[in-house]
């Protein structure tokens, strides 16, 4: 079959080549932007190294917020990484190829179980997104697509290894090709897979504590005019989830995003959220983001909330001035 041989031969080579180049480019972009963006000029070298170390030890700071989900996520990613590389079938293919590379392979039962774990968890993640209302509202189609892209090679691979679908003639011919195509799709998707902090519009108060907690300066906020805008630079992000952990409203999320465009935009800062700022009724200075003030208004409703810090001091002083006996005597003297 022409398509089958094309997928097996030239396309696979192109995909592997693209993967290698893509990974190298991404590492170069990542390191340069990390060096450039790391906070605190004096401590640049240690800061940058600390951040780099945190990439290699991917401990999420957000784990304590959802321990069970985080553990499942870790297991999923571990299996996703280990199975394709150390699967006995894949290792033997490398040995048979002209490169003749070989390395230790996993026992077949282990890889079977790990494949089932990946498939089960992928199903669980999809169901979780569909069932829980809060998650469903925050989900875009891309989120489902990413999970499906990750799970497809495992599904086809499992059927291929066990020959479950060989009874159906359509699958018995095509399952090999399907496995390779889905694997290639996954490899290509890996190059264009980025993380991105998302802020839930409904709950985010725009307080910018995520910006303060960000160790690499990936998240930035800028107050211009009456708007505070948040920026995110995707290459700089080490996916430490400090923003997710810090957010007092649980509005920040770190999610996957597949984008061809972002791959080329090395130093680009994405605008991810903007909030209106409230201005002081007396002096007009901007002092608090509007959603945060709305939240405060739920517990406190006083007139002084419309003033900025300095004007509050002044109005308090004005009050003291009015009641001060000294001022009254001054007034009576002048009158």
């Amino acid at each position, binding site marked *: 079959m022409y398509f089958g041989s094309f997928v097996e031969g030239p396309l696979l080579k192109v995909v592997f080549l693209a993967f290698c180049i893509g990974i190298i480019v991404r590492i170069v972009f990542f390191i340069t932007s990390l060096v450039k963006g790391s906070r605190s000029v004096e401590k640049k070298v240690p800061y940058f190294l600390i951040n780099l170390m945190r990439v290699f030890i991917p401990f999420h700071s957000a784990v304590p917020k959802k321990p069970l989900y985080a553990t499942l996520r870790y297991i999923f990613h571990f299996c996703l990484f280990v199975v394709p590389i150390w699967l006995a079938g894949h290792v033997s293919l490398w040995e048979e190829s002209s490169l003749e590379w070989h390395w230790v392979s996993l026992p077949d039962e282990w890889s079977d179980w790990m494949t089932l774990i990946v498939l089960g968890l992928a199903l669980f993640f999809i169901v979780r997104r569909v069932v829980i209302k809060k998650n469903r509202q925050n989900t875009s189609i891309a989120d489902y697509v990413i999970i499906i892209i990750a799970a497809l090679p495992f599904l086809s691979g499992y059927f291929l290894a066990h020959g479950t679908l060989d009874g159906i003639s359509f699958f018995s011919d095509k399952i090999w090709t399907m496995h390779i195509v889905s694997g290639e799709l996954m490899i290509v998707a890996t190059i264009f897979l980025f993380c991105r902090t998302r802020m839930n519009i409904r709950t985010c*108060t725009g*307080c*910018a*504590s995520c910006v*303060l*907690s960000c160790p690499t300066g990936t998240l930035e906020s800028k107050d211009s005019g009456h708007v505070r805008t948040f920026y995110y630079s995707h290459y700089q992000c080490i996916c430490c989830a400090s923003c997710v952990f*810090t957010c*007092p*409203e649980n509005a920040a999320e770190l999610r996957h995003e597949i984008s061809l465009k972002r791959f080329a935009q090395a130093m680009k800062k994405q605008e991810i959220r903007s909030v209106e700022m409230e201005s002081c009724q007396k002096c007009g200075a901007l*002092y*608090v983001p509007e959603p*945060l*003030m709305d*939240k*405060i208004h739920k*517990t*406190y409703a*006083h007139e*002084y*909330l419309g*003033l*900025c*810090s*300095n*004007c*509050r*001091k*002044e109005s*308090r*002083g004005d009050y*003291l*001035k009015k009641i*001060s006996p*000294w*001022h009254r005597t*001054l007034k009576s003297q002048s009158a």
Partner: protein
Amino acid sequence: MAKALYIDYQKCTGCRLCELVCAVKHDGISNPTRSRIKVMKWEAEGLYIPMSCQQCQDAPCLNVCPVKAISRDEELGRVVVDYDVCIGCRSCVAVCPFGAMNFNVIDKKVIKCDLCDGDPQCVRFCDVNALEFVSPDEISIGKKRDAAGRLSKAGREAGVLLAEL
């Protein structure tokens, strides 16, 4: 009983030494904008009122803090910020009725009066004793004495006036 910072603004001369001392004590920089205490001025009337944290009993900053970083320290009678817990959301800055919470944009953290752990430097350096660190009952006794003095003075004046009649 925990002492409190008593501000007798009628004595204040507006020299702003307290602001400098506060910034030097906490940040090591003599920059009055980074001070926890702030002297509000009405130059036309010659009125100077130092404004600082009131260490409220039912503090709005404490109630509004989303991560419970602010707590009351009953031993020293103050409201303290735990900087390890604080995330810098500035809710406390937005809610403080006295404008006593400030945000330090250089260190990126909220700053408030912590009574210098029981030895307020602004009190130590205030030449005219406009700032005093005294127990709260002393404040009220002083005020009572003043009021009583005014009453007795008024009484005496009234007596003189009556005698003249």
